[in-house]
């Protein structure tokens, strides 16, 4: 009897999972709607916002946040947080800066060393998480505080100030500038090359997540660790790789910043880690892991960029920005909650 009802009603039930519900299951849908609304809102308020110069202006903060958000989204889908991600951007820049300007290390060697340092931090984060099985929140809170202290302590020790400067005087700065901080003029406005890297990161991250074995493992590790282990997913390798990916992104952003600003504050990156998580959550990542989207996280970063600049263009006090961001985060979390319940509900 059951088989008859099962096979007989096949087609009609496919139709029942309608287009709307199907779209709702796409994690990035909410952020896309949000981005359109935010754009429309500020575009209506300000001419400059929708001009080429305005676009270049709000794409700039969106791009550096977006590159981090892509990595953080992958990590969150894999079921983890990295509170040390923000401060690692500072660590990368300070390491490169001190090695080149104070110790005269060859530029490329210095960059390589700071990259290796970041990857090592990512490895340690991941290793501790998989070994101790403690929440990544607490492990990376520890590395966050340690790095925060190190960044300040080492910078003061070496420079007697809290800033590493003169990065533009190192050998090969022109090449670095071309890679990390050149500008392209389109329609009379200069766009940062970071926007291009952001797009590359989004496409690459999304491809890995949706089209590779590794991507399947990310979903599995975040969705149900025991199940993933039972079917032979290399759980530890996947988790450690995700932490190292986040560290790589932090190195990239840290390097971009010191190249662009030619100096770096010892406190650079503090507090940014939460903004990355906000972008990923607005983009549809569940805090509990196993669900989310790289494209969504990038759109989350876009919303961040548009709001932060839009408020200025609208002539409001910039303090309102945090309020907007918080409200958007709450809305996104509520929407995610609903989607998750829908996705997990059994239709018996």
């Amino acid at each position, binding site marked *: 009897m059951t088989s008859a009802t099962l096979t007989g009603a*096949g087609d009609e039930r496919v139709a029942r999972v309608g287009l709307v519900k199907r779209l709702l299951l796409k994690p990035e849908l909410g952020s896309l709607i949000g981005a359109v609304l935010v754009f429309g809102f500020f575009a209506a308020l300000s001419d400059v916002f929708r001009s080429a110069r305005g676009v270049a202006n709000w794409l700039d903060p969106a791009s550096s946040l977006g590159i981090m958000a892509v990595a953080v989204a992958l990590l969150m889908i894999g079921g983890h947080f990295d509170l040390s991600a923000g401060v690692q951007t500072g660590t990368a820049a300070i390491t490169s800066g001190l090695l080149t300007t104070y110790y005269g290390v060859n530029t490329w060697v210095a960059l390589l060393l700071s990259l290796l340092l970041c990857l090592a931090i990512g490895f340690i984060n991941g290793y501790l998480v998989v070994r101790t099985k403690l929440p990544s929140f607490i492990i990376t809170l520890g590395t966050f505080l340690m790095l925060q202290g190190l960044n300040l302590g080492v910078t003061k020790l070496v420079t007697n100030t809290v800033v590493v400067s003169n990065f533009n005087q190192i050998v090969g700065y022109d090449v670095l500038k071309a890679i990390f901080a050149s500008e392209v003029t389109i329609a009379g406005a200069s766009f940062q090359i970071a926007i291009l890297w952001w797009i590359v990161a989004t496409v690459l991250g999304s491809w890995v997540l949706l089209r590779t*074995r590794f991507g399947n493992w990310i979903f*599995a590790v975040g969705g149900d660790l025991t*199940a993933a282990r*039972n*079917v032979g997913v290399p759980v530890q390798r996947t988790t450690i790789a995700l932490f190292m990916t986040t560290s790589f992104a932090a190195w990239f952003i840290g390097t971009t910043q010191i190249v662009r600003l030619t100096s770096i504050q010892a406190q650079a990156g503090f507090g940014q880690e939460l903004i990355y998580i906000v972008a990923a959550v607005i983009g549809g990542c569940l805090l509990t892991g196993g669900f989310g989207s790289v494209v969504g996280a990038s759109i989350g970063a876009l919303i961040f960029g548009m709001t932060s600049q839009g408020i200025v263009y609208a002539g409001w006090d910039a303090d309102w920005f945090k309020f907007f961001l918080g409200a958007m985060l709450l809305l996104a979390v509520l929407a995610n909650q609903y989607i998750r319940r829908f*996705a997990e509900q059994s239709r018996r």
Partner: protein
Amino acid sequence: MSSEKPPLLEIRELTKTFGSVISLSGVSTTVRAGEVTCVLGDNGAGKSTLIKILSGVHRPDGGELLMDGKPVQLGNPRAALDAGIATVYQDLAMVPLMAIWRNFFLGSEPTKGWGPFRRFDRQRALETTRRELGDMGIDIRDPDQPVGTLSGGERQSVAIARAVHFGARLLILDEPTSALGVKQAGVVLRYIAAARDKGLGVIFITHNPHHAYPIGDRFLLLNRGKSLGDLAKSEISLAELTRLMAGGAELEELAHELERDPSTGEKTATP
């Protein structure tokens, strides 16, 4: 029932102790390709220990396992899988938020392309999932839907289909019907039959003789780590199976006890 060919799996005098606790003592049975051997027993009868030995989690302290007539050592779960023994656990090893086709190939994803462009062959995964489930008579509305939207019985069925696809010769099902309603249990029993008809040997662990009897070809009854009997279907009736399963004499005693004790005036459970 070709008696010339050695059985797919033969268990001989299996013994396992944990410290001073004897979990299994001298348990024997056989599983033939295309047949279902049911392992019945109450809680603590040694069913879980038996599964864990067969799936390579524990090593037996005595006795031997023969596959196709040859002795085998199952040192770890991988060795059991390589020998073609697939275990479908109660917790199912599926990720609720992931699509069926992603779950189906989880850990063994087919790939195409080379080098850095090696990627998950989604088309093949989708098509294979649809076909394999179809072959088992499982009608899924859409392989792209999350496993979490499936009912318990459907999830069991997908897990069985997955084991069949990945070359299992012997399927161990750990109480697949225990958490299910009557209808859903019927669905799962039907898929067990489908796996059997594909030529797999099946070990079906349950404590419900009404699920075991219609589908079983052989019954191993366990009680407190000991075998109460290893019987072919022709040697036992459902009534007898139920009686043995419930501890035989113990149940009769219990029935008496319940009958003799209406002192509180309340209605007692009738057997």
